[in-house]
């Protein structure tokens, strides 16, 4: 042991041996282990020790701390007949620890429940996809300007990319299940775009999509079902308008806008002074999309709608930074306080 630390040890072991009352014991304990006590002071001096001696100094100091603690404790035990208090239990009491689903999963489950009650299956498909499934089968041929709406992340191998939208899952669904008509399917999924990551944008985010193919499906079915979903998610008083909106994979296209929950339609920075927040896209599945999936559009019709989950989840959980959702500062209170 470091000579200086050795001297200190001997000095305090001797002092402990001479203690007579509980009061003296407590005074010495504070002198050694209090916030401004000797041990803390010695630890703070570790930065002044030469680099080559630091390791040994740390070891010795920890040993000194342990020895003095033990010595105080044993003194305590020797005088136990004089103690006025008694520890009743060694158990640490707390409320039971509970685990939590990620808030995105939570939102997905709420939506899955709505759609399962209507007879929907839950579906998924690969995340590394070909250009064909991400664009062409969704009525977006090569060099179509609609491709500029989405900056894709490509894999080194040509023609492969990370899916940019959950509509890509629709491409797989229609191809794989075109002999199982009618179909109803909903699919949550993570999607990727080449976006700089900052507090409001991320390269990976989460969408939710639902697709129906049946005979005689109409826009009335689409809008009624979407409205049911919004009311389930946002409450019965939510105000949503449905307007004409372009997406290459649907026609007629429908854009649901929710009246801004912050300003209630007056206009504020959240809704960019529009009074409304765009909630995603939808529409009747384009005849070309059905045709590419081998589905006869004269017999079958259908609708599709999709929405982003991240922004709503952030607003609901008071999360200001989208990075929090993906491995950042997201944490869960360990129990329901």
């Amino acid at each position, binding site marked *: 042991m470091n000579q200086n630390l050795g001297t200190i040890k001997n000095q305090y072991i001797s002092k402990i041996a001479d203690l007579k009352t509980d009061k003296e014991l407590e005074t010495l304990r504070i002198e050694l282990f209090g916030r401004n006590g000797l041990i803390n002071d010695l630890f703070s001096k570790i930065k002044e020790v030469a680099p080559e001696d630091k390791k040994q100094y740390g070891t010795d100091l920890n040993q000194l701390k342990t020895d003095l603690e033990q010595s105080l404790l044993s003194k305590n035990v020797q005088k136990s007949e004089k103690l*006025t208090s*008694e520890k009743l239990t060694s158990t640490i009491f*707390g409320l039971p*620890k*509970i*685990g*939590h*689903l*990620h808030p995105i*999963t*939570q939102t997905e*489950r*709420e939506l*899955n*429940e709505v759609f399962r*009650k209507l007879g929907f*299956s*839950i579906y998924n498909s*690969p*995340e*590394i996809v070909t250009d064909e499934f991400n664009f062409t089968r969704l009525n977006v041929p090569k*060099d179509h*300007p609609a491709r500029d709406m989405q900056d894709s992340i*490509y*894999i*080194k191998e040509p023609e*492969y990319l990370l899916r940019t939208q959950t509509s890509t899952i629709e491409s797989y669904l229609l191809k794989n299940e075109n002999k199982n008509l009618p179909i109803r399917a909903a699919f949550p999924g993570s999607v990727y775009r*080449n976006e700089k990551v900052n507090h409001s944008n991320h390269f990976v985010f989460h969408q939710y999509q639902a697709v*129906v193919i*049946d005979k005689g499906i*109409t*826009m*009335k*079915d689409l*809008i*009624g*079902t979407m409205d049911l979903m919004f009311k389930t998610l946002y409450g019965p008083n939510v105000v949503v308008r*449905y*307007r*004409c*909106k*372009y997406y290459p994979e649907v*026609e*007629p*296209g429908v854009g649901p806008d929710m009246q801004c929950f912050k300003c209630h339609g007056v206009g504020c920075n959240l809704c*960019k002074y*529009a009074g409304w927040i765009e909630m995603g896209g939808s529409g*009747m599945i*384009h005849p070309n999309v059905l045709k590419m999936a081998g589905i006869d559009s004269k017999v079958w*019709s259908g609708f599709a709608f999709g929405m982003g989950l991240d922004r709503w989840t952030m607003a609901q*959980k*008071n999360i200001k930074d989208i990075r929090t*959702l993906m491995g950042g*500062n*997201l*944490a*869960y*209170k360990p129990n*329901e*306080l």
Partner: protein
Amino acid sequence: MKLIYSELKKFLPDLSVEPHQLRDDITMIGHFTNFFEEINDEIVFDLDIKVNRGDCLGYYGLARDLSVFYNIPIKNLSSNINSQSNYSLPIQITTNNVKRIMAIKISNLKNNPSPQWLQTFLKCHGVNSINTLVDLTNYIMFLYGIPSHAFDTAKSTDNLIWEMNPKFKEFTSLDGSKLILDKNILMINNPDKALSLSFWGGESCAIDETTTETIIEIAIYDRTTVRQNSRQLKSNTEASTRLEKDLDPELIPMAFNHLVNLILENCGGQINSQIFDYYPNKVISPQIEFDPKKCSLVSGINIPTDFSVDCLTRLGSTIDDLPSTISITPPSVRKDLSIEADLIEEVVRFWGYQKIPTNQPLTFKELTDITPKEIYLIESLKDQLISLGYDEILSWPLVDTPTDPKSVVTTQNSVNTEVIYLRQSLIPSLKRQLDQYERLKLPETQFFEISKVFEKVGDNFIEKNSLGLYHYNFKQLINDLQKLNLSATIFDNNFAEIILDDLPKPNKYIPKLQNNNVVELTSQTITLDANLTLDTKENPTELIKKYSKIIGPESLWKLIITDIYQDTKTNKYRYTFQASYFNIDDKTAKKIHLEAFNLI
């Protein structure tokens, strides 16, 4: 796209709705309007024009839509021009990427700073005023959605050539940007000089206030070529935004005549050439068989046939009766109308989406369950894990280091050059999450992630669902894996990972809805102790509940009782609490703590 109310009214003199109503109506028919504002006493709307409606990147296209919607006439602001000149411009076109060009030479003009109305117009559109001639070409672009250009013939000569770049290595644009060219660039040159790109004018023939003679041209090109050129040169201009869309060559004469008349009116001068009009392949609009009843069948509400036919007529379509249906030839300006579904959308949007009821959703229908069974497994596992106290996290699927370089999937254009690989394991992501939790001083963490991991085997990409787990207590981690009947690989004692795809899967699982106590941590948690002396022995859980309520959920992360002592002399009980606080500073935490436990 900006839209000035007073300028729109020039095309629609009978427009009488208030700006608020106009904003809502334009939005409902497909052009989302964020807001309107007042700039220099003008009411200016901010519109989001979708890529299929290149015609609406000009006032004329929007006015056409609104004239149908409000059933009011649209005014033609253009009038024909006459040229008495016998001079034929020596223009050459050596590429088939040109759809139509109209051009003319004007001499003896006097170019000055722009009149105030023109400066205000451009300011509202976020464009700087240069001089009258240049500003008028921009004005016409905003009115009709087709870019136009003026060459100073003293610099360019009359020998303009539309060609794919024959030899030029470099081009300097009007704003002085130097661009490096290759052979795939569509250009306007003379035999010696690079003059202009298809979407951006050049410095070498720029119009200034000394210009007295000009060749004015309006052209439409193969949009894919313009788009590729713009991407390749990383140059996005108002002109390229428009020329990348499917524009109507038939609209050029109207815009061209309007421009020439405005130049003569504002700059004087005389027309000094014949009108040059290159239009090799005349646009033919498609004939579409249309059954008006389908508008009702698709929308689910009754839309009268008369309305459908009237609406498409007002849109400018030609209508011919067929034996059982009708044939519609849409106006050439509407490049987005090519099949029956396009026409149905037109009718429904003008009839009004708001007339479709919102309270008639689909009802339950029993269909074959096509849910992949791994989804049931994942849902079931998540529920079991949270019942064991684990929190779910999600992490970045892109990582900086491959677990196995031989089979790693590499991205071509990742968002960040440091993270270019798709993860092959969840463990590195879980470790990063643990580091973050430790920085935040979160005690006793246990968490999991179920996400895809990726690898390349031969020419195939393999995606598998993986479960990654961390528990601060190794023994408990092992116990939990046993409870879940999972055989996992253990990493660094406290981490475990298992690929889920090969596990047995349930045929059905309906997951539970859970409460979610999620928090975005903005600072380290702060843990403080408090001793409380009570006269009687109390139930510790009730005490925790009581003091949790006193402290309040806004700042309390966790509250436990670490010790309970009985004073044998006084027969009193001492409870030692340990409280953790979040998203508040030390000082505030201490204040709350002292007040809650009455320690002041």
